[in-house]
């Protein structure tokens, strides 16, 4: 299944936040989205996932999702969005309920995704009892459990330390390529971490400051399974990306652009 | 200066004597500035007299009243209305369904359900008298306390109860419209002292002069009431005095404050219970009432009926020996 952003534009009241965004992502592909804070990245993901109606343009899908997929377009939310009254396990179970899965399959899926996110010991803890990074991992575990065709990830590793992040990125790489029995999946990956972007993405969309517009699309070539974080080539690409962004930053210092304010 | 006293009262025609005494200035003549405090239930009136919020009260006698008065704080000093043969009085209605099944007279009430307002109310007592007079046990009647007159009307109309005892101004329209059947009058069975004027025991000892003045004016009101509404012609029918319309209007002001005066006055005339012209109490009946209520377990055995009465303010109470 392919997910297609077709000239998407959006505004909140007088505040334009997205301007003419188009791209495609299919199985085995990762599109990373980087851009300044408040430029509309989360809004774009919501539109792609059908949670918000764009003011112009459309989010489209082409092709059928894999039969086993419980929820073809699956989010990892920036603010986690965990149910505080369910345990870690219960939060994951939420997305498995109502699909007629057997008890055994449900239990096995939960066991698997909690193990992958290092939460096995905290299966019965409530969100309130978790650290920030653990909450974020519950959000990831839940998304994995839904067997998505396209994952819409909003800064999914932002609260994690470098080593946990490494491990989870390895996991994501496997997922995307469809290692083992699983099918390959697509991923839209919003991040502010350029290292993550070059490590994971096939294409990196660099958005301008609000209203977010695609300033550049950077292609990262080569098998992502072969990439290593300390690969000098990747480090160089990340530095390049950074220069690109910094130029934009210098251009318009701070958020004093002449946009309509949201005030009043 | 005038002495201020307040009287707790319900908006009923049977308290008409009191209203007339106010309207005609009899209290003023005695140097009393009387304020009427209208209540929407009888119970709080007695309580307000006990607590000293009002000096006097006029209501019907109930088991509750006797229980309260029996504790020594209240004294009954004059009469209100009375059930008397040949005058307006409570009526017994059967529901249409029950009537069709044969409930056509009072002696057939045994085994039927009868709606009353409250446990220990006058209706309850009157049902007891009917049972006694017709030779069946009160226990054989299923009494349904319904709390309010609208509830009674609703119950008889929908056949929820077989019969009710109710005041004539409500009974007559029901019977007339065919929504219920009249099967008897309470006054055919018994005469009955409905209620009275009472004050706190403290008043009768500490402010005797005030009480005397009040009673005098009250009696005048009762006399006017009796003259206007209760006079009979030779054939025994009520013959209203020529000024009865004006008198009724005075009463109506208090009973139906919101209604058109002419219509209200007519209602007053049509619902005039018997009131003794000197506001004398039927003492023997009160003793009988209390005894019956005690026998039924509704009035505490320790209540001394005679101690409730202070007969010293009016001469010649009826059946006083």
């Amino acid at each position, binding site marked *: 299944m392919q997910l297609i952003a077709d000239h998407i534009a959006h505004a909140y009241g007088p505040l334009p936040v997205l301007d003419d965004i188009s791209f495609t992502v299919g199985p085995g592909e990762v599109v990373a989205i980087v851009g300044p804070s408040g430029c509309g990245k989360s809004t774009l993901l919501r539109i792609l996932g059908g949670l918000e109606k764009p003011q112009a343009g459309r989010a489209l899908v082409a092709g059928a999702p894999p039969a086993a997929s419980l929820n073809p377009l699956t989010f990892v939310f920036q603010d986690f969005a965990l149910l505080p009254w369910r345990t870690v396990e219960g939060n994951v179970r939420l997305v498995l309920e109502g699909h007629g899965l057997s008890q055994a399959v449900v239990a096995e899926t939960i066991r698997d995704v909690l193990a992958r996110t290092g939460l096995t010991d905290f299966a019965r803890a409530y969100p309130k009892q978790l650290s920030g990074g653990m909450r974020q991992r519950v959000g990831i575990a839940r998304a994995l459990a839904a067997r998505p065709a396209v994952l819409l990830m909003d800064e999914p590793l932002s609260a994690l330390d470098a080593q946990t992040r490494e491990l989870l990125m390895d996991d994501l790489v496997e997922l995307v390529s469809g290692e083992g029995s699983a099918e390959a999946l697509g991923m839209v990956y919003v991040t502010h971490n350029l290292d993550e972007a070059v490590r994971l993405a096939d294409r990196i969309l660099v958005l301008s400051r609000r209203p977010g517009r695609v300033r550049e699309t950077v292609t990262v070539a080569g098998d992502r399974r072969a990439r290593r974080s300390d690969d000098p080539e990747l480090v160089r690409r990340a530095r390049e990306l950074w220069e690109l962004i910094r130029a934009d930053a210098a251009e318009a210092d701070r958020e004093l652009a002449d946009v309509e304010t949201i005030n009043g | 200066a005038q002495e201020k006293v307040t009287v707790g009262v*319900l908006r009923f025609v049977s308290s008409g004597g009191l209203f007339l005494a106010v309207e005609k200035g009899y209290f003023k003549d005695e140097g009393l500035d009387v304020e009427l405090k209208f209540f929407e239930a009888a119970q*709080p009136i007695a309580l307000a007299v006990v607590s000293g919020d009002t000096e006097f009260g006029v209501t019907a006698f109930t088991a509750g009243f006797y229980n309260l008065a029996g504790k020594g704080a209240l004294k009954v000093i004059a009469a209100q209305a009375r059930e008397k043969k040949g005058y307006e009085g409570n009526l017994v209605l059967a529901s249409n369904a029950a009537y069709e099944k044969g409930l056509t007279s009072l002696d057939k009430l045994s085994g039927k359900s009868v709606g009353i307002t409250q446990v220990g109310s006058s209706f309850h007592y009157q049902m007891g008298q009917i049972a006694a007079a017709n030779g069946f046990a009160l226990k054989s009647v299923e009494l349904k306390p319904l709390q309010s*007159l*609208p509830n009674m009307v609703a119950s008889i109309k929908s056949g929820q109860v077989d019969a009710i005892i109710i005041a004539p101004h409500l009974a007559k329209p029901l019977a007339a419209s065919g929504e219920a059947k009249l099967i008897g009058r309470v006054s055919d069975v018994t005469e009955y002292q409905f209620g009275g004027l009472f004050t706190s025991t403290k008043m009768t000892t500490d402010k005797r002069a005030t009480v005397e003045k009040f009673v005098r004016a009250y009696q005048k009101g009762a006399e006017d009431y009796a003259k206007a509404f209760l006079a009979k012609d030779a054939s025994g029918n009520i013959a209203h005095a020529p000024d009865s319309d004006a008198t009724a209007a005075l009463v109506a002001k208090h009973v139906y404050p919101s209604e058109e005066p002419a219509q209200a006055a007519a209602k007053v005339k049509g619902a005039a219970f018997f009131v003794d012209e000197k506001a004398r109490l039927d003492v023997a009946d009160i003793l009988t009432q209390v005894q019956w209520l005690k026998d039924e377990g509704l009035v505490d055995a320790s209540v001394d009926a005679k101690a409730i009465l202070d007969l010293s303010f009016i001469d010649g109470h009826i059946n006083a020996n």
Partner: protein
Amino acid sequence: MADVAHDLRPAATADNRPVTFRGGLFLPRTHRLVGFAALVALILLWQAASSFGWMSPVLAPSPGEVIDALKRMALSGELATHLSASLVRLAGGFAIGGTAGIAFGMAIGLSSLVRSPGATLVAALFPIPKIALLPLFILWFGIGESSKVATIAFGTFFPMVIATYGAVDNVDRSLVRMGRSFGLSSFAIISKIILPGALPGILSGMRIASSIGIVLLIAAEMIGANEGVGAMVLAAGNLMQSDRLLAGVVVLSLLGLTVAGVIGAVEKRLLAWR
């Protein structure tokens, strides 16, 4: 930097279909007019019920008759008298009961010292019918205005206490911790964090308590009241004047709508952030 493309829009294939919108958040809208229409429908239903005889005309007159009665009462000035008497009692009683209820509810929600005894006493005293306590009310407050105001104050106090402490319990404690961390005084934390956080629940409690206050006008005006909508309804019941009785009911109902409208407006203003 290589491979820059400005439009990756794919060729539209027959297979393309829009992503299903699934953003419905169950955020219902309020339409004043629809609310009004519902009231009209209720009155029409009532008219139908009396036209088709589902309600006995003696017990329940038609809307027309009731409106007539209302009109007469309005013209004679009687309505204004009753309404103003009741409004004073209601406002006084609800002001006392509501304020005390919020204060006590806050105390139960905030202090271990108050919580157990407070919540227990509320649970024990709330279910006591006011009518059963009328004798004591007469004894303590007399038969003047104070016993009437007290009846309403007592009746609104308890639901406000429960709603308030429920709402306080539900305030996110991480915000309280934030306030502490900035050295806010306990008073500032209570007034700036806990109270606004509990406000939705408190306003919901006020809707309930104000309605209860209106219902209690009847009980309050049982005691020596000549004026007041409750007294009028009671008197009309005793005198079997069902048109006046229902006119009184209509007035109480309009009163309830007004109070609910005011609370709704306050809610709209204070909870705009949701």
